[in-house]
């Protein structure tokens, strides 16, 4: 029994035991570190794919579609999380384990069930990435726990949601006026905005007795309340009492529109000075159109690609009697020039289509590409209306008509212009439709952002 008292080699036994523990700790450090790093990368990739998918929500009609799958797959490649294309599975609310990188896309998030505040909201896209990650050592440790397979694989899941976010946090409404600079040069400017607000990503100038009713009125630059210190009446839909400064910047909400393709020459393209009672047909107009004084011209529904201005002289009327909704609407796309009203005795009554017929022209009434810096002047009678979006990312919209203008008689409207100038005692009404109500695919002047 002397062997029990023999201390030689005791340290060897102790050391080998400690060594095992130390090696185990090191193995764990490597495995856990490795899994954490991969999880981080997967989360970035999931964010990236969710944003890419969300940008196609409008294009796909608030559901998943091939274009959304293409965009999300491409986003994973761009993020370099994988070098091979991952084909997503659409509309799947349970996450299966997968040995290779797999992706699920849901429009109307559902993976978290009803606990998710965005559950079922079809303005939000959800992307789940799942991947089985091999461990280096955990499998070996598993053997000690009697599990012959060990923990040789860990199933990693990264989930992200993206959708339209509104500049006013906590607000479900977007901007119906988005501009880089806004200027009221006259007193008594009277703006009534329903269900939406104004975002001015630059300086703001107001004048005496201007008034605005809006959900919010934000500017990012400096506000020059010319002659207006404390005397302007600002009626805002929320708790704010006057335009408020924000440091939150918003990108151009309409920048993602698919540009249209140039159509063939219109059959009436040569008729640049139409007579009273003429009906112009859609198509390409190389030289624009001039409406001389006191003529009434009708536009047949369709897409008008103008390479020059449409000038409307005093007493003239430009209407679209066949604009009854759906594809029956007009889009005036100005590659060059713009729509010019030269007198407040003109009447413009135009309605945009609610379904795209060329590029993303659903709800687009006046559309200039960013290469066109021509401004548009609205100087027209109070019976005029513009039902649709005015989008001039590099142009200035000037209001010169004292009588008043209604943008959006039927419910869908937005103004997205580089500069907005109000030169008269203007009455200006804009009504936006809240997402998910009344009008199919309304233009939502929010911006796309990660939500979760």
């Amino acid at each position, binding site marked *: 029994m002397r062997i029990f008292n023999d*201390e030689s080699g005791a340290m060897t036994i102790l050391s080998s035991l400690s060594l095992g523990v130390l090696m185990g700790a090191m193995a764990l450090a490597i495995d856990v570190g490795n899994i954490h790093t991969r999880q*981080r990368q997967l989360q970035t990739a999931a964010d990236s794919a969710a944003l890419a998918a969300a940008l196609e929500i409008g294009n796909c009609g608030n559901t998943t579609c091939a*274009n959304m799958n293409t965009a999300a797959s491409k986003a994973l490649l761009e993020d370099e999380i994988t070098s091979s294309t991952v084909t997503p599975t659409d509309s799947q609310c349970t996450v299966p384990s997968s040995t290779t990188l797999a992706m699920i896309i849901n429009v109307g998030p559902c993976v978290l069930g009803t606990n998710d505040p965005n559950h079922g909201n079809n303005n939000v896209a959800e992307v789940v990435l799942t991947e089985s990650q091999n461990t280096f050592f955990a499998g070996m440790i598993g053997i000690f726990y009697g599990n012959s397979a060990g923990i040789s694989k860990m199933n990693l899941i990264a989930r992200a949601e993206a959708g339209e976010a509104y500049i006013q946090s906590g607000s479900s409404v977007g901007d119906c006026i988005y501009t880089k600079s806004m200027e009221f040069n006259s007193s008594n400017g009277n703006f009534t905005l329903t269900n939406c607000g104004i975002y001015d990503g630059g300086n703001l100038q107001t004048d005496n007795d201007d008034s605005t009713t809006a959900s919010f009125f934000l500017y990012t630059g400096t506000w020059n309340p010319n002659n207006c210190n404390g005397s302007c009446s600002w009626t805002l839909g929320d708790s704010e009492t006057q335009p408020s400064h924000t440091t939150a910047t918003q990108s151009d909400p309409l*920048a993602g529109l698919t540009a249209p393709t140039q159509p063939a020459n219109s059959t009436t393209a040569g008729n640049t000075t139409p007579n009273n009672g003429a009906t112009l047909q859609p198509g390409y107009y190389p030289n624009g159109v001039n409406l001389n004084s006191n003529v009434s011209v009708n536009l047949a529904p369709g897409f008008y690609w103008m390479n020059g201005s449409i000038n409307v002289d005093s007493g003239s009327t430009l209407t679209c009697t066949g604009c009854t909704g759906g594809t029956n609407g007009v889009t005036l796309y100005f590659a060059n020039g713009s729509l010019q009203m030269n007198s407040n005795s003109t009447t413009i009554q135009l309605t945009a289509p609610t379904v795209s017929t060329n590029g993303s022209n659903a709800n687009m009434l006046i559309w200039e590409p960013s290469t066109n810096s021509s401004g548009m002047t609205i100087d027209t009678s109070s019976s005029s209306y513009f039902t649709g979006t005015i989008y001039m990312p590099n142009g200035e919209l000037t209001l010169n008509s004292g009588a008043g203008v209604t943008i959006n008689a039927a419910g869908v409207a937005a103004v997205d212009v580089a500069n907005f100038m109000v030169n008269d005692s203007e009455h200006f009404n804009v009504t936006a439709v809240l997402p998910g109500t009344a009008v199919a695919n309304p233009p939502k002047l929010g911006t796309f952002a990660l939500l979760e």
Partner: protein
Amino acid sequence: MKRRNRFDLLGEECGASLVELALIFPLFVLILLGAVDFARAYYLATEIAGAAQAAAIYGSENPNDTAGMTVAAQDDAPNVPNLSVQTPTYGCECADGSSYSASCAVTPTSCPNSLNVIYRVNISVSATYTPILPWPGMNYNMKFTSNASMRSAGS
């Protein structure tokens, strides 16, 4: 009193454990340092991946503010001393990745299958990790790089 033979010392076992411990201790420390080195390296890798993501998320809202993206990355990883943020780039392309134009010099005029034109920002963040010990066979200055790319509706 019995005088101890000086050769008796060789047979003496008192303190043998201490000697053995002294021999094995450096090995323990070595292994421990190895674990610490791995953990620190992974921490750095996670940190710069986070920085790249923060910059990309900022970029998704402000695609042409490359200076802002750089600041976002730096702010996200203040405890990485040698963080290097490559000047972020942005561009626009069709949603399927075709017709890419750096800095959106030329906006794609038409995309296949009515895909949208989107903006995209690219971030690359890197940092150098110096291990505590110069492990044989390993690069003494390991460079970790994390790339992130995020899409945006536009500027």
